[in-house]
C-alpha cells in the first residue's frame, strides 16, 4: 500500500516579471511506517513540495499541477475543504519550518493545542487539556502547565518548536511531515525528540518525511534519502548508500561540504557558484552551471530521472 503518492508534481508562482518554478516534476511514494529524508539546496522546493502535498499553499498565488497527488487514499487534487481538513488532522500533520507561522500570537499555546485536539478527536475540554500537557511533557517541556498558559512570544525558539511538534502529534497522524523540526533545539533535546518520533513510528506505524539540512539528523533517523536541487529530485537511495557512495555529482558535492569531519577552526568546502534562480532556471540539468563534470549535453537537455538499481535512482547523464 502507498500512503503518499506524488507523481510529476509541479508548483509555480506566477509573478509580475515571470514565473517562479518552485517544484518541477517531483515524484515521491511513501509507504506506511517508512522514514524518508528530504535534503538539498536551500530554495530547491523541499518545503513547497510538502505544503503542496497537504494542499496548504494558497492557490492563487501558487499553481499546483500533478499527474497524481494522493494522501491516505484521498485524491488531494480534487478533495473539497472538509475532506482536506479531515486529512490534515487524522492522516497527516505538519511541523512547519517557521514555528511562528504555526501559532496565532493572540491565543495561548494551550488554547491552540486544545482546539486542535478537539477538532479531530471527541474529547472534553479538560481531557484535551490533560492530553496537551502530557504531550508537552513528552517533547521534554519541563513545566507543561506554565507553557500552556503562555503566549507564543513568551517562549524561546526551541520551546515554540517543541510546542508545535506536540500539536502536530496530538492527532496521531499516519504520516508526519517534519520541516526542519529540530533546528531551534539544542542537540540533547534534538536527540530526545528524534527518539520520540521513532518511538511513535513504532507505536502507531507512523510514516515520516523529514526535511532537513542537518545530515547528522539524516544519518540518525531516516531509511531513505531524497536529494533535491532546482525544483527536481536529483537522487534517491537508502541512507547508508548516500553516505558511503553518493552517485549524483550534486549529492557528492553536498556530502563534501558537511561540517564537523575535521577538528579546528577552518574554512569549509562550498559548492562554487550561485543557487539557480527559480524564475529563470538554467536549461538542461539544473546543476550544470556548477557541475564539475558537465558537458554540452547537460546544458542542452535535462536528464530523465531513472532507476539505477532496485533501490536507487538518479537524474544525471553520467549515470544513464
Amino acid at each position, binding site marked *: 500500500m502507498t500512503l503518499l503518492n506524488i507523481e510529476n508534481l509541479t508548483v509555480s508562482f506566477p509573478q509580475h516579471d515571470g514565473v517562479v518554478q518552485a517544484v518541477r516534476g517531483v515524484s515521491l511514494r511513501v509507504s506506511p511506517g517508512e522514514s524518508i529524508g528530504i535534503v538539498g539546496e536551500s530554495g530547491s522546493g523541499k518545503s513547497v513540495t510538502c505544503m503542496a502535498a497537504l494542499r496548504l499553499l494558497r492557490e492563487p498565488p501558487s499553481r499546483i499541477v500533478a499527474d497524481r497527488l494522493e494522501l491516505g487514499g484521498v485524491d488531494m487534487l480534487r478533495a473539497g475543504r472538509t475532506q482536506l481538513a479531515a486529512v490534515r488532522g487524522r492522516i497527516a500533520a505538519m511541523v512547519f519550518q517557521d514555528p511562528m507561522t504555526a501559532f496565532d500570537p493572540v491565543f495561548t499555546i494551550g488554547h491552540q493545542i486544545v482546539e486542535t485536539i478537539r477538532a479531530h478527536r471527541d474529547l472534553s475540554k479538560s481531557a484535551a487539556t490533560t492530553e496537551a500537557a502530557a504531550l508537552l511533557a513528552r517533547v521534554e517541556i519541563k513545566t507543561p502547565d506554565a507553557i500552556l498558559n503562555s503566549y507564543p512570544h513568551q517562549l524561546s525558539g526551541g520551546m515554540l518548536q517543541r510546542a508545535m511538534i506536540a500539536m502536530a502529534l496530538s492527532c496521531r497522524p499516519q504520516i508526519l511531515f517534519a520541516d526542519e523540526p529540530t533546528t531551534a533545539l539544542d542537540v540533547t533535546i*534534538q536527540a530526545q525528540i528524534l527518539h520520540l518520533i521513532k518511538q511513535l513510528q513504532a507505536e502507531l506505524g507512523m510514516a515520516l518525511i523529514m526535511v532537513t539540512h542537518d545530515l547528522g539528523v539524516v*544519518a540518525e533517523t531516516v531509511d531513505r534519502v531524497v536529494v533535491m536541487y532546482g525544483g527536481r529530485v536529483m537522487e534517491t537511495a537508502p541512507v547508508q548508500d548516500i553516505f558511503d557512495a553518493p552517485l549524483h555529482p550534486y549529492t557528492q558535492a553536498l556530502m563534501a561540504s558537511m561540517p564537523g569531519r575535521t577538528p579546528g577552526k577552518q574554512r569549509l568546502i562550498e559548492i562554487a557558484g550561485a543557487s539557480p534562480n527559480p524564475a529563470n532556471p538554467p536549461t538542461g540539468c539544473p546543476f550544470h552551471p556548477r557541475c564539475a563534470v558537465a558537458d554540452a549535453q547537460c546544458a542542452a537537455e535535462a536528464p530523465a530521472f531513472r532507476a539505477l538499481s532496485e533501490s536507487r535512482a538518479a537524474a544525471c547523464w553520467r549515470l544513464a
Partner: protein
Amino acid sequence: MTPALELKNVSKTYQLRQSGGFFARTTDHLAVNNVSLTLPRNQILGLVGESGSGKTTTGMMAMRLVEPSAGQILVDGTDITALGHAALKPFRRKMQVVFQDSYSALDPMMTLAQIVAEPLHIHGLGTASEQTEQALEMLVKTGLDRSYGNRYPHELSGGQRQRVAIARALILRPQVLVADEPTSALDVSVKAQIINLLLDLQAEMGLSILFISHDLSVVRSLTDKVAVMFQGRIVEEAPTETIFTDARHPYTRSLLDAIPVLNPRERRARTFLSRVQIEAATPRLSGQDGTPELHDIAPGHRLEAIR
C-alpha cells in the same frame, strides 16, 4: 587591548502573567543569572547550550534590545548600560544582530534591496542609488543573485530569508555582530559559504562575533572560544578545542554526547541525563560542600564547580 564587548554580572528577570484565575498573578522568571562574558576584539565567541537557557536573551541584552535587570554592558570599554536613545545611536551602528527568527525581522512590505539598504538610509550613508548598489553587492556576497533585489520576503525560502537578514546586518560593516542561529536554516553548502564569509569579514574588517548556535559542528569550525549555558548560567567556558576534547561539566559532556552521528553506521542507543542528574553531578574541586561557582581551572578555562 579593550575587548569589543563585555558583559559583567548580567541578569534578566521576566515577569510572567499567569492567566486562568480571576486575578492575574505574576511570577518572576530568572532567564539569565549573573552572566559574565568577554568577547575580545577580532575573535569569535560561541554561545551554546540548552534550549531556553537564556542565550538569545543574553545576546539581546548585549545589543541593548532587552533591558538587563542587573549588571553592566561595555562596548569598546564604554559602559552603555544606562545610555539613552540618542547617546546609544553611534554604538548601534557598530553593533548589529542577526535574529534567530528571521521571518518576523524582515518587513513584508519592503523589497529585499530596500530591506538590506535600510540601515544605510537610517544612518544617512550615501545617495539612494549608492545605497541600493551596496545592498545588491551584499546580497551577492551572501549568495543571492542581484535579481533577488526586487523580490519580497514572503517569496523566499527559509534559507534565502536568513541570507537577507545576514546581508542587512553586515551592510554597515559593524565591529560587533551578534548572530543568533544564523545558519540553522541553511543547506550545508550555503552554510559553508556564510561561515567562510564570516571568517573573511573577521579577518578583513576586524569583526568580533558572538555566535549563538546549536550546531556544534559549525561552532567547532568557526569559533575561538565557547561558553556553555545551562539554566540561565554559564557553566563552562574554554578555548574551542578544549571544549570539544576536554569538557569537564556534566552538561557540556551530555551536549557533546548528543551530537548526531556523521554516518548512519554509527547509530547507537543513547541515554539522556535529566536536569536533576546534571545538577547532582556538579564537579567538585575538593571534598567539601558548598554552592557551585565559576572557577578558573586552567588558562582560559572556566568551570562551574564546588570548591
